[in-house]
């Protein structure tokens, strides 16, 4: 049986599935339920400084987009950090940690961007017995207008500064949570690394408007006729998050920096993908908010089954395994040639591959052969773009088949070269380096 116990920057948990800092981790009641359901850890909903807590809107806090059958694909929120008193949260955290010593309990923190504020809160958190802290530099709404959250996360110098303070004033491991609302995720990650962070976690939510009410012309979610951009999360953001995780994992400056992966993780498979790209563990929120805490049972069993099937003994066998395969476009092998192939037995003749290719691509799929409805790839036109695979409603019906070295590419009229060759040496590249003889 695969061992899925997790050790993330010294924080141990029975599995790599943590609940992200968010409404599901706002109080003891929820966290106790989560631990009972089997979650390996939680990042407690972000604590603010002592004093009157923040307030939330009293109308809708969430907006969403849906797929077929109203399956929730993307969620956004305009909720702020915890709106409960700091002492109440600290008291509950201490009790929960005592009740569940084998689970990870990490405190998310967001206080004003000055040394005194951080210096003041860290001992209070440490006193709860929390396993670590996560710096919320990501929250994109409300708090950012007050110079916190993503307002810090968008300025690498601030990140480095705050991380340094935290490392100075606490013995707890520091996880720096990054905002995706920037152009290059590597910059804030490098800054956190320079400040001495133990890990980064990402992504926080993405600035978004989920919809517009076309009767009132108000953005959604709507508060008394107005809306504000909220933080977008859920399955829709997973590809964006995975790229950002991979960028940090493969950046020479941050390579080896532990990453807690966040962003649309809904199933064991999503988690395994994040971990393969370099995440040491994962954090989940929207899936739990959609289906409840029980989903972790599927995640645990699914991950174990897959690892057993593939012979992966522990998480270290999978973390970062895909990272070396993420590269720059310029290094992709231009001599690799693939052609679409349609399995005629599996084809249901919907014609979507044809019309997608005909209208928007390369006119490489027939619609009629000998007077019969028939969809077949015209190899001489096929550039191997994969659009037909993506629009085909039948999984596995259209596949991309690589041409063997030496085989004739009917489109170019040339045999497929066995030699790896990329753009850096391509004759069309004015900056091409001379290929080594």
């Amino acid at each position, binding site marked *: 049986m695969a061992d899925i116990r997790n050790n993330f920057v010294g924080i141990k948990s029975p599995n790599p599935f943590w609940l992200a800092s968010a409404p599901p981790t706002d109080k003891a009641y929820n966290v106790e339920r989560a631990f009972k359901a089997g979650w390996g850890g939680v990042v407690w909903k972000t604590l603010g400084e002592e004093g009157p807590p923040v307030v939330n809107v009293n109308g809708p806090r969430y907006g969403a987009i849906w797929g*077929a*059958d*109203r399956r929730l694909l993307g969620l956004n929120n305009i909720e702020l950090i915890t709106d409960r008193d700091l002492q109440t949260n600290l008291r509950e955290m201490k009790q929960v940690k005592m009740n569940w010593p084998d689970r990870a309990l990490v405190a998310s923190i967001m206080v004003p961007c000055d040394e005194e504020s951080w210096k003041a809160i860290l001992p209070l958190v440490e006193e709860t017995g929390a396993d670590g802290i996560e710096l919320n530099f990501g929250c994109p709404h409300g708090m950012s207008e007050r110079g916190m959250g993503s307002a810090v996360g968008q300025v690498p110098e601030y990140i480095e500064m705050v991380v340094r303070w935290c490392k100075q004033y606490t013995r707890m491991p520091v996880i720096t949570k990054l905002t995706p609302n920037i152009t290059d995720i590597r910059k804030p990650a490098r800054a956190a690394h320079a400040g001495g962070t133990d890990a980064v976690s990402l992504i926080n939510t993405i600035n978004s408007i989920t919809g517009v009410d076309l009767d009132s012309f108000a953005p959604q979610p709507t508060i008394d006729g107005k809306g504000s951009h909220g933080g977008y999360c859920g399955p829709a953001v997973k590809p964006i998050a995975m790229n950002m995780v991979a960028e940090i994992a493969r950046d020479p400056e941050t390579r080896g920096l532990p990453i807690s992966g966040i962003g649309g993780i809904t199933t064991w498979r999503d988690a395994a993908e994040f971990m393969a790209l370099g995440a040491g563990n994962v954090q989940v929120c929207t899936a739990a908010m959609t289906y409840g805490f029980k989903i972790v049972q599927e995640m645990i069993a699914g991950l174990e089954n897959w690892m057993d099937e593939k012979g992966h003994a522990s998480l270290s066998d999978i973390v970062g395994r895909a990272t070396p395969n993420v590269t720059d476009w310029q290094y992709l092998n231009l001599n690799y040639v693939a052609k679409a192939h349609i399995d005629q037995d599996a084809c*249901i*003749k*919907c*014609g*979507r591959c*044809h*019309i997608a290719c005909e209208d928007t691509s390369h006119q490489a799929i027939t*619609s009629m052969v000998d007077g019969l*409805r028939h969809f077949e790839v015209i190899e001489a036109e096929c550039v191997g773009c994969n659009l037909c695979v993506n629009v085909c*409603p*039948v999984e596995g019906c259209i596949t991309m088949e690589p041409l063997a070295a030496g085989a004739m590419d009917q489109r170019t009229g040339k045999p497929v070269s066995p030699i790896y060759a990329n753009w850096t040496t391509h004759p069309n590249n004015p900056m091409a380096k001379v290929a080594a003889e």
Partner: protein
Amino acid sequence: MATGHFIEGVAGGRLSAEQYADNFSDLHPPLDHHEALVEADRCYFCYDAPCMNACPTSIDIPLFIRQIATGNPLGSAKTIFDQNILGGMCARVCPTETLCEEVCVREVAEGKPVQIGRLQRYATDVAMGENKQFYKRAEPSGKTVAVVGAGPAGLATAHRLARHGHDVTILEARPKAGGLNEYGIAAYKSVDDFAQAEVDYVTAIGGIDIQNGKALGRDFQLSDLMRNYDAVFLGLGLGGVNALHADGEDVDGVANAVEFIAELRQASDLSSLPVGRRVVVIGGGMTAIDAAVQSKLLGAEEVTVCYRRGQEHMNASGFEQDLAAANGVAIRHWLQPKRVIAENGKVSAIELEYTAMNGDKLAGTGETLRLNADQVFKAIGQSFVPAVLNGSVASIELEGGRIKVDAEGRTSLAKVWAGGDCIFGGDDLTVSAVAQGRDAAESIHRALTSNGRA
């Protein structure tokens, strides 16, 4: 349990009021809003969609389904009505399982087609519920057209002609318009007086005058129409019922299935409608199934459909056969009626003879079977009665016993078009009658306006 099942002979009141109501409620209840969205989302929006090609009226099915999915049911309804103004009824009565849904790629892929018929009903119900009229009449053309028969073909013709600005008079023999939509389909397929609501919806465009109780050959002649109107459309359906050719079929208790179905549709109190304890229906088409299932639903204890060929030859669709079976109707094959047995002038049993294929000819085997029956329905087809056309003008050319038309619906007589069940080469479907009526109207319009130009 009601004991009315066991009353001997032909009797009414076999069931409780609740049972009647339940038995004759909507066969396919309408999709609610969410169900429609989920079902619409199953459509793959196929290229050159097979469903569209299978539809006799060529409705752009992927487009209307996409319009439902995107929250535009009115636009969806217009897409449907553009091709088929009786799209509401067709959504209810089309044998979709042998038309659009049979070729749906999801039927091919997983045996579960997109429920096109029910989606069509959803969209058309929304539009008709709001009485949304999509079409305006063109400027009056000053031309007049007579339409004989207010069935699906006649209504489709009339609507399309009215759109083009022509004045249409529909002459209908029966007290109500609608034709088979009103008189010829099982009650549970079209509830809440939908056929009349649809007639009102179609005629709301204006320029259509329906005169009921006017029968061709009795109240007026074809020559009158040809003289008084610029064009004539014949959509008079089938007036005759084929005989059993069994001895003694004229006794009490032997009836035409089409009349039974019509009577049932018109009944205001189903308990007043008598039905036998043991019913035998002779035939293998939709009419046979409709009569058999409804007999069962009216409380008959035992209902048997007897068909002279095999299951694979039945005109009733697989769905209809399953529906009959699910309602407890027994379907027996390779049996033809031989003799109706009567007691005191009333049918008491029917003697049938087994049949078999002798080469490529069907023949009785000599072996017989006797089924007790206090009611026998004849459902072995209807026939066109050409006599109503005769006498007043040169006789119209027939083919296979029905009116011969060309691809545009033109008959052998100038100024006279025809469509629906009365023409040769049709398939006896509502949706085909609509297509024929619509296309004949376009042909008439071209003829009246020198190629469409007024």
